[in-house]
Protein backbone atom coordinates (compact mmCIF):
# COMPACT_ATOMS: atom_id res chain seq x y z
CA UNK A 1 0.00 0.00 0.00
CA UNK A 2 2.73 2.43 0.95
CA UNK A 3 4.50 1.74 -2.34
CA UNK A 4 1.35 2.65 -4.20
CA UNK A 5 0.97 5.84 -2.14
CA UNK A 6 4.62 6.75 -2.73
CA UNK A 7 4.12 6.21 -6.41
CA UNK A 8 1.07 8.45 -6.33
CA UNK A 9 3.08 11.15 -4.52
CA UNK A 10 5.91 10.91 -7.03
CA UNK A 11 3.61 11.16 -10.03
CA UNK A 12 1.72 14.12 -8.59
CA UNK A 13 4.88 15.99 -7.53
CA UNK A 14 6.57 15.43 -10.87
CA UNK A 15 3.47 16.73 -12.61
CA UNK A 16 3.41 19.74 -10.28
CA UNK A 17 7.08 20.48 -10.88
CA UNK A 18 6.41 20.26 -14.61
CA UNK A 19 3.77 22.97 -14.34
CA UNK A 20 6.19 25.23 -12.47
CA UNK A 21 8.71 24.58 -15.22
CA UNK A 22 6.12 25.34 -17.88
CA UNK A 23 5.09 28.50 -16.04
CA UNK A 24 8.67 29.75 -15.88
CA UNK A 25 9.30 28.96 -19.54
CA UNK A 26 6.10 30.76 -20.45
CA UNK A 27 7.06 33.74 -18.35
CA UNK A 28 10.40 33.93 -20.12
CA UNK A 29 9.45 33.05 -23.68
CA UNK A 30 5.92 34.30 -24.34
CA UNK A 31 5.85 37.44 -26.44
CA UNK A 32 3.67 39.83 -24.42
CA UNK A 33 2.52 40.48 -20.89
CA UNK A 34 -0.99 39.09 -21.16
CA UNK A 35 0.16 35.70 -22.45
CA UNK A 36 2.80 35.63 -19.72
CA UNK A 37 0.06 36.25 -17.19
CA UNK A 38 -1.75 33.25 -18.62
CA UNK A 39 1.34 31.04 -18.17
CA UNK A 40 1.82 32.29 -14.64
CA UNK A 41 -1.66 31.43 -13.44
CA UNK A 42 -1.30 27.86 -14.66
CA UNK A 43 1.81 27.40 -12.54
CA UNK A 44 0.15 28.97 -9.53
CA UNK A 45 -3.01 26.90 -9.60
CA UNK A 46 -2.03 23.55 -11.05
CA UNK A 47 1.60 23.40 -9.98
CA UNK A 48 1.01 24.06 -6.32
CA UNK A 49 -2.23 22.07 -6.40
CA UNK A 50 -0.49 18.94 -7.67
CA UNK A 51 2.35 19.33 -5.15
CA UNK A 52 -0.19 19.62 -2.34
CA UNK A 53 -2.02 16.59 -3.69
CA UNK A 54 1.21 14.63 -3.78
CA UNK A 55 2.13 15.58 -0.22
CA UNK A 56 -1.31 14.78 1.23
CA UNK A 57 -0.63 11.02 1.72
CA UNK A 58 2.50 11.93 3.70
CA UNK A 59 0.95 14.15 6.38
CA UNK A 60 0.41 12.67 9.78
CA UNK A 61 -2.45 14.69 11.23
CA UNK A 62 -5.79 15.96 10.00
CA UNK A 63 -4.76 19.50 10.91
CA UNK A 64 -1.68 19.16 8.74
CA UNK A 65 -3.80 18.04 5.79
CA UNK A 66 -6.23 20.90 6.35
CA UNK A 67 -3.34 23.36 6.46
CA UNK A 68 -2.02 22.08 3.14
CA UNK A 69 -5.44 22.48 1.55
CA UNK A 70 -5.83 25.93 3.12
CA UNK A 71 -2.49 27.00 1.64
CA UNK A 72 -3.63 25.90 -1.78
CA UNK A 73 -6.97 27.64 -1.38
CA UNK A 74 -5.28 30.87 -0.32
CA UNK A 75 -2.92 30.78 -3.29
CA UNK A 76 -5.84 30.10 -5.64
CA UNK A 77 -7.72 33.04 -4.25
CA UNK A 78 -4.84 35.47 -4.29
CA UNK A 79 -3.62 34.20 -7.66
CA UNK A 80 -7.02 34.80 -9.24
CA UNK A 81 -7.37 38.25 -7.69
CA UNK A 82 -3.86 39.42 -8.51
CA UNK A 83 -4.08 38.10 -12.08
CA UNK A 84 -7.17 40.27 -12.47
CA UNK A 85 -5.42 43.25 -10.89
CA UNK A 86 -2.32 42.89 -13.04
CA UNK A 87 -4.45 42.40 -16.16
CA UNK A 88 -6.35 45.60 -15.45
CA UNK A 89 -3.11 47.47 -14.78
CA UNK A 90 -1.81 46.25 -18.14
CA UNK A 91 -4.94 47.32 -19.98
CA UNK A 92 -4.79 50.78 -18.43
CA UNK A 93 -1.37 51.15 -19.95
CA UNK A 94 -2.50 49.97 -23.34
CA UNK A 95 -1.29 46.40 -22.87
CA UNK A 96 1.48 46.84 -25.40
CA UNK A 97 4.42 46.11 -23.16
Amino acid at each position, binding site marked *: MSVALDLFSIVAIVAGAFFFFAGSVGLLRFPDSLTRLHALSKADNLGLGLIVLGLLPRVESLLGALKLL*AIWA*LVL*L*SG*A*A*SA*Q*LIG*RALRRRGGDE
Partner: protein
Amino acid sequence: MSVLQALDIGLALLVLAVAVWTIAAAEIFGAVVAYVAYGLLLSIVWVRLFAPDVALTEAAIGSGVTGILLVTSGARLNSAGKASAAAPPRLSLRLSAAALAIVAAAALAGVILTLPDPGPTLAPEARRELAATGLGNPVTAVLIAYRSFDTMLEKIVLLLAVVGVWSVAPDRFWGGAPAPLGRANPQGALVLLEQTLVPLGILVGVHTFWVGADEPGGAFQGGAILAAMWMIVMIARVSEPPSVNSRWLRLALIAGPGVFLVAGVAGLGMAGNFFAYPDGFAKPIILFIEAFMLLTIAATLPVLVAGPPRRSPKP
Protein backbone atom coordinates in the same frame (compact mmCIF):
# COMPACT_ATOMS: atom_id res chain seq x y z
CA MET B 1 27.74 16.27 -2.19
CA SER B 2 24.22 15.49 -1.10
CA VAL B 3 21.08 16.89 -2.67
CA LEU B 4 20.47 19.06 0.37
CA GLN B 5 23.92 20.67 0.11
CA ALA B 6 23.39 21.40 -3.56
CA LEU B 7 20.06 22.99 -2.66
CA ASP B 8 21.73 25.17 -0.03
CA ILE B 9 24.42 26.36 -2.42
CA GLY B 10 21.87 27.10 -5.13
CA LEU B 11 19.78 29.04 -2.64
CA ALA B 12 22.81 31.03 -1.43
CA LEU B 13 23.76 32.00 -4.98
CA LEU B 14 20.19 33.05 -5.71
CA VAL B 15 20.01 35.24 -2.62
CA LEU B 16 23.24 36.94 -3.63
CA ALA B 17 22.13 37.41 -7.22
CA VAL B 18 18.84 39.02 -6.20
CA ALA B 19 20.66 41.21 -3.65
CA VAL B 20 23.03 42.43 -6.38
CA TRP B 21 20.03 43.27 -8.51
CA THR B 22 18.47 45.21 -5.62
CA ILE B 23 21.54 47.45 -5.63
CA ALA B 24 22.10 47.56 -9.38
CA ALA B 25 18.55 47.94 -10.73
CA ALA B 26 18.07 50.97 -12.92
CA GLU B 27 14.69 51.97 -11.52
CA ILE B 28 13.48 52.17 -7.97
CA PHE B 29 10.43 50.03 -8.71
CA GLY B 30 12.59 47.19 -10.06
CA ALA B 31 14.81 47.45 -6.99
CA VAL B 32 11.83 47.18 -4.64
CA VAL B 33 10.44 44.18 -6.54
CA ALA B 34 13.85 42.54 -6.27
CA TYR B 35 13.92 43.31 -2.56
CA VAL B 36 10.59 41.56 -2.04
CA ALA B 37 11.87 38.52 -3.95
CA TYR B 38 14.99 38.68 -1.83
CA GLY B 39 12.90 38.59 1.36
CA LEU B 40 11.03 35.51 0.12
CA LEU B 41 14.29 33.69 -0.64
CA LEU B 42 15.77 34.76 2.66
CA SER B 43 12.87 33.25 4.58
CA ILE B 44 13.60 29.90 2.91
CA VAL B 45 17.22 30.28 4.05
CA TRP B 46 15.94 30.88 7.61
CA VAL B 47 13.96 27.65 7.44
CA ARG B 48 17.18 25.88 6.42
CA LEU B 49 18.84 27.41 9.53
CA PHE B 50 16.12 25.79 11.69
CA ALA B 51 14.59 29.17 12.45
CA PRO B 52 10.95 29.04 11.32
CA ASP B 53 10.05 31.83 13.79
CA VAL B 54 12.51 34.14 12.07
CA ALA B 55 11.41 32.91 8.63
CA LEU B 56 7.84 33.95 9.37
CA THR B 57 8.92 37.36 10.69
CA GLU B 58 11.17 37.95 7.68
CA ALA B 59 8.41 36.95 5.23
CA ALA B 60 5.83 39.18 6.91
CA ILE B 61 7.83 42.25 7.92
CA GLY B 62 11.15 42.10 6.08
CA SER B 63 9.58 41.44 2.73
CA GLY B 64 5.84 42.13 2.87
CA VAL B 65 5.40 45.24 4.99
CA THR B 66 8.74 46.86 4.09
CA GLY B 67 7.89 46.20 0.44
CA ILE B 68 4.60 48.07 0.65
CA LEU B 69 6.26 50.90 2.59
CA LEU B 70 8.81 51.41 -0.17
CA VAL B 71 6.35 50.99 -3.03
CA THR B 72 3.97 53.52 -1.48
CA SER B 73 6.66 56.08 -0.74
CA GLY B 74 8.30 55.52 -4.12
CA ALA B 75 4.99 56.33 -5.76
CA ARG B 76 4.56 59.43 -3.60
CA LEU B 77 8.05 60.64 -4.53
CA ASN B 78 7.60 59.81 -8.20
CA SER B 79 4.33 61.66 -8.47
CA ALA B 80 6.18 64.94 -7.96
CA GLY B 81 9.07 64.35 -10.32
CA LYS B 82 11.22 61.64 -11.76
CA ALA B 83 13.21 60.49 -8.76
CA SER B 84 15.18 57.97 -10.75
CA ALA B 85 17.06 60.49 -12.85
CA ALA B 86 20.31 60.69 -10.93
CA ALA B 87 23.75 61.28 -12.29
CA PRO B 88 26.02 58.29 -11.67
CA PRO B 89 28.54 58.86 -8.87
CA ARG B 90 32.16 59.49 -9.70
CA LEU B 91 34.38 56.53 -10.49
CA SER B 92 36.80 57.28 -7.65
CA LEU B 93 33.92 57.24 -5.16
CA ARG B 94 32.63 53.96 -6.57
CA LEU B 95 36.05 52.35 -6.45
CA SER B 96 36.80 53.38 -2.89
CA ALA B 97 33.29 52.33 -1.77
CA ALA B 98 33.82 48.96 -3.44
CA ALA B 99 37.18 48.57 -1.69
CA LEU B 100 35.64 49.42 1.67
CA ALA B 101 32.75 47.01 1.07
CA ILE B 102 35.13 44.20 0.14
CA VAL B 103 37.24 44.80 3.24
CA ALA B 104 34.15 44.77 5.48
CA ALA B 105 32.74 41.62 3.88
CA ALA B 106 36.10 39.84 4.00
CA ALA B 107 36.62 40.74 7.67
CA LEU B 108 33.18 39.42 8.55
CA ALA B 109 33.72 36.25 6.51
CA GLY B 110 37.06 35.75 8.28
CA VAL B 111 35.34 35.98 11.65
CA ILE B 112 32.71 33.46 10.57
CA LEU B 113 35.29 30.96 9.35
CA THR B 114 37.22 31.19 12.62
CA LEU B 115 34.29 30.97 15.04
CA PRO B 116 35.04 28.70 18.02
CA ASP B 117 33.84 25.12 17.73
CA PRO B 118 31.51 24.17 19.38
CA GLY B 119 29.92 27.60 19.48
CA PRO B 120 28.98 29.20 22.80
CA THR B 121 25.32 28.68 23.58
CA LEU B 122 22.61 29.56 26.04
CA ALA B 123 20.38 26.72 24.85
CA PRO B 124 20.93 24.53 27.97
CA GLU B 125 19.90 27.43 30.23
CA ALA B 126 16.87 28.08 28.05
CA ARG B 127 15.96 24.39 28.24
CA ARG B 128 16.39 24.22 32.03
CA GLU B 129 13.89 26.94 32.85
CA LEU B 130 11.47 26.25 30.03
CA ALA B 131 9.17 24.08 32.15
CA ALA B 132 8.74 26.91 34.68
CA THR B 133 7.33 29.20 31.99
CA GLY B 134 4.81 26.59 30.83
CA LEU B 135 5.82 27.30 27.21
CA GLY B 136 7.02 24.88 24.56
CA ASN B 137 8.62 27.33 22.16
CA PRO B 138 11.99 28.50 23.54
CA VAL B 139 12.04 31.57 21.29
CA THR B 140 8.79 32.82 22.78
CA ALA B 141 10.19 32.07 26.24
CA VAL B 142 13.26 34.19 25.49
CA LEU B 143 11.13 37.01 24.13
CA ILE B 144 8.52 37.26 26.87
CA ALA B 145 10.15 35.63 29.88
CA TYR B 146 13.96 35.52 29.93
CA ARG B 147 14.59 38.77 28.15
CA SER B 148 11.25 40.43 28.70
CA PHE B 149 12.79 43.79 29.50
CA ASP B 150 14.40 43.88 26.03
CA THR B 151 11.15 43.05 24.34
CA MET B 152 9.27 45.70 26.26
CA LEU B 153 11.84 48.34 25.32
CA GLU B 154 11.60 47.17 21.73
CA LYS B 155 7.85 47.93 21.84
CA ILE B 156 8.76 51.39 23.10
CA VAL B 157 11.10 51.81 20.14
CA LEU B 158 8.11 51.12 17.88
CA LEU B 159 6.15 53.75 19.76
CA LEU B 160 9.01 56.24 19.37
CA ALA B 161 9.08 55.53 15.65
CA VAL B 162 5.37 56.38 15.46
CA VAL B 163 6.02 59.61 17.37
CA GLY B 164 8.88 60.38 15.00
CA VAL B 165 6.83 59.71 11.86
CA TRP B 166 3.89 61.77 13.13
CA SER B 167 6.07 64.66 14.17
CA VAL B 168 7.29 65.39 10.63
CA ALA B 169 3.77 66.49 9.72
CA PRO B 170 3.24 70.18 8.92
CA ASP B 171 1.51 72.01 11.77
CA ARG B 172 -1.71 72.63 9.91
CA PHE B 173 -2.36 68.89 9.51
CA TRP B 174 -1.79 67.98 13.12
CA GLY B 175 -4.74 66.02 14.46
CA GLY B 176 -5.79 64.97 10.97
CA ALA B 177 -5.55 61.66 9.15
CA PRO B 178 -2.76 60.31 6.91
CA ALA B 179 -3.28 60.18 3.15
CA PRO B 180 -5.33 57.19 2.00
CA LEU B 181 -3.30 54.13 1.08
CA GLY B 182 -5.30 53.07 -1.96
CA ARG B 183 -6.54 54.83 -5.06
CA ALA B 184 -9.94 56.44 -5.28
CA ASN B 185 -11.94 53.75 -7.06
CA PRO B 186 -10.80 50.32 -5.90
CA GLN B 187 -11.28 47.59 -8.48
CA GLY B 188 -13.79 44.83 -7.99
CA ALA B 189 -11.09 42.18 -7.72
CA LEU B 190 -9.42 44.08 -4.91
CA VAL B 191 -12.64 44.42 -2.97
CA LEU B 192 -13.39 40.72 -3.48
CA LEU B 193 -9.91 39.86 -2.25
CA GLU B 194 -10.41 42.09 0.76
CA GLN B 195 -13.72 40.43 1.57
CA THR B 196 -12.44 36.86 1.30
CA LEU B 197 -8.78 37.02 2.25
CA VAL B 198 -8.98 39.31 5.26
CA PRO B 199 -11.27 37.09 7.42
CA LEU B 200 -9.03 34.11 6.64
CA GLY B 201 -5.96 36.23 7.34
CA ILE B 202 -7.30 37.31 10.72
CA LEU B 203 -7.89 33.65 11.53
CA VAL B 204 -4.33 32.75 10.50
CA GLY B 205 -2.90 35.70 12.41
CA VAL B 206 -4.63 34.75 15.63
CA HIS B 207 -3.71 31.09 15.08
CA THR B 208 -0.06 32.07 14.59
CA PHE B 209 -0.15 34.03 17.83
CA TRP B 210 -1.91 31.23 19.73
CA VAL B 211 0.35 28.34 18.65
CA GLY B 212 3.37 30.58 19.33
CA ALA B 213 3.42 29.33 22.91
CA ASP B 214 4.48 25.86 21.81
CA GLU B 215 5.33 25.97 18.12
CA PRO B 216 6.89 28.55 15.81
CA GLY B 217 4.82 31.73 15.81
CA GLY B 218 3.94 34.32 18.39
CA ALA B 219 2.82 37.88 18.86
CA PHE B 220 5.34 39.36 16.41
CA GLN B 221 4.44 37.08 13.53
CA GLY B 222 0.71 37.05 14.22
CA GLY B 223 0.71 40.82 14.66
CA ALA B 224 2.53 41.32 11.38
CA ILE B 225 -0.03 39.16 9.55
CA LEU B 226 -2.90 41.10 11.15
CA ALA B 227 -1.18 44.36 10.20
CA ALA B 228 -0.94 43.18 6.58
CA MET B 229 -4.65 42.40 6.62
CA TRP B 230 -5.52 45.84 7.96
CA MET B 231 -3.42 47.38 5.20
CA ILE B 232 -5.32 45.40 2.55
CA VAL B 233 -8.54 46.78 4.04
CA MET B 234 -7.14 50.30 3.76
CA ILE B 235 -5.85 49.79 0.21
CA ALA B 236 -9.31 48.57 -0.82
CA ARG B 237 -10.64 51.80 0.79
CA VAL B 238 -13.06 49.87 3.00
CA SER B 239 -11.63 51.83 5.91
CA GLU B 240 -9.34 54.84 5.96
CA PRO B 241 -6.20 55.39 8.03
CA PRO B 242 -7.40 56.71 11.42
CA SER B 243 -6.61 60.28 12.38
CA VAL B 244 -3.66 60.69 14.70
CA ASN B 245 -5.67 61.93 17.64
CA SER B 246 -8.19 59.10 17.59
CA ARG B 247 -8.39 57.78 21.11
CA TRP B 248 -8.76 54.09 20.33
CA LEU B 249 -5.77 54.19 17.99
CA ARG B 250 -3.58 55.72 20.68
CA LEU B 251 -4.82 53.15 23.20
CA ALA B 252 -3.97 50.33 20.79
CA LEU B 253 -0.49 51.80 20.22
CA ILE B 254 0.39 51.88 23.91
CA ALA B 255 -1.51 48.75 25.01
CA GLY B 256 1.40 46.37 24.41
CA PRO B 257 4.21 48.20 26.23
CA GLY B 258 1.75 49.45 28.84
CA VAL B 259 0.44 46.04 29.83
CA PHE B 260 3.97 44.69 29.67
CA LEU B 261 5.24 47.37 32.03
CA VAL B 262 2.32 46.89 34.44
CA ALA B 263 2.97 43.14 34.49
CA GLY B 264 6.65 43.84 35.12
CA VAL B 265 5.93 46.13 38.04
CA ALA B 266 3.32 43.70 39.40
CA GLY B 267 6.05 41.04 39.41
CA LEU B 268 7.85 43.22 41.93
CA GLY B 269 4.97 42.78 44.36
CA MET B 270 3.83 39.24 43.51
CA ALA B 271 7.07 37.40 42.82
CA GLY B 272 9.62 39.67 44.46
CA ASN B 273 11.39 40.90 41.36
CA PHE B 274 10.89 43.30 38.47
CA PHE B 275 9.47 41.29 35.53
CA ALA B 276 9.30 38.08 37.58
CA TYR B 277 6.20 35.99 37.03
CA PRO B 278 4.68 34.16 40.03
CA ASP B 279 5.08 30.37 40.04
CA GLY B 280 2.38 28.51 38.20
CA PHE B 281 0.91 31.64 36.65
CA ALA B 282 3.72 32.30 34.18
CA LYS B 283 1.92 30.96 31.11
CA PRO B 284 -1.39 32.81 31.54
CA ILE B 285 0.48 36.04 32.26
CA ILE B 286 2.71 35.56 29.23
CA LEU B 287 -0.28 34.92 26.98
CA PHE B 288 -2.06 37.97 28.44
CA ILE B 289 0.93 40.21 27.69
CA GLU B 290 1.30 38.68 24.24
CA ALA B 291 -2.34 39.34 23.38
CA PHE B 292 -1.83 43.07 23.93
CA MET B 293 1.47 43.01 22.07
CA LEU B 294 -0.38 41.41 19.16
CA LEU B 295 -2.81 44.32 19.16
CA THR B 296 -0.03 46.90 19.36
CA ILE B 297 2.01 45.40 16.53
CA ALA B 298 -1.09 45.02 14.34
CA ALA B 299 -1.86 48.72 14.92
CA THR B 300 1.69 50.12 14.77
CA LEU B 301 2.94 48.70 11.48
CA PRO B 302 0.08 50.10 9.32
CA VAL B 303 0.33 53.46 11.11
CA LEU B 304 4.03 53.58 10.24
CA VAL B 305 3.28 52.75 6.59
CA ALA B 306 0.46 55.30 6.35
CA GLY B 307 2.88 57.99 7.46
CA PRO B 308 2.32 61.42 8.99
CA PRO B 309 -1.09 63.15 8.85
CA ARG B 310 -1.81 64.73 5.47
CA ARG B 311 -5.28 66.15 5.93
CA SER B 312 -6.59 68.95 8.08
CA PRO B 313 -8.42 67.72 11.16
CA LYS B 314 -12.18 67.63 11.01
CA PRO B 315 -13.62 70.54 12.99
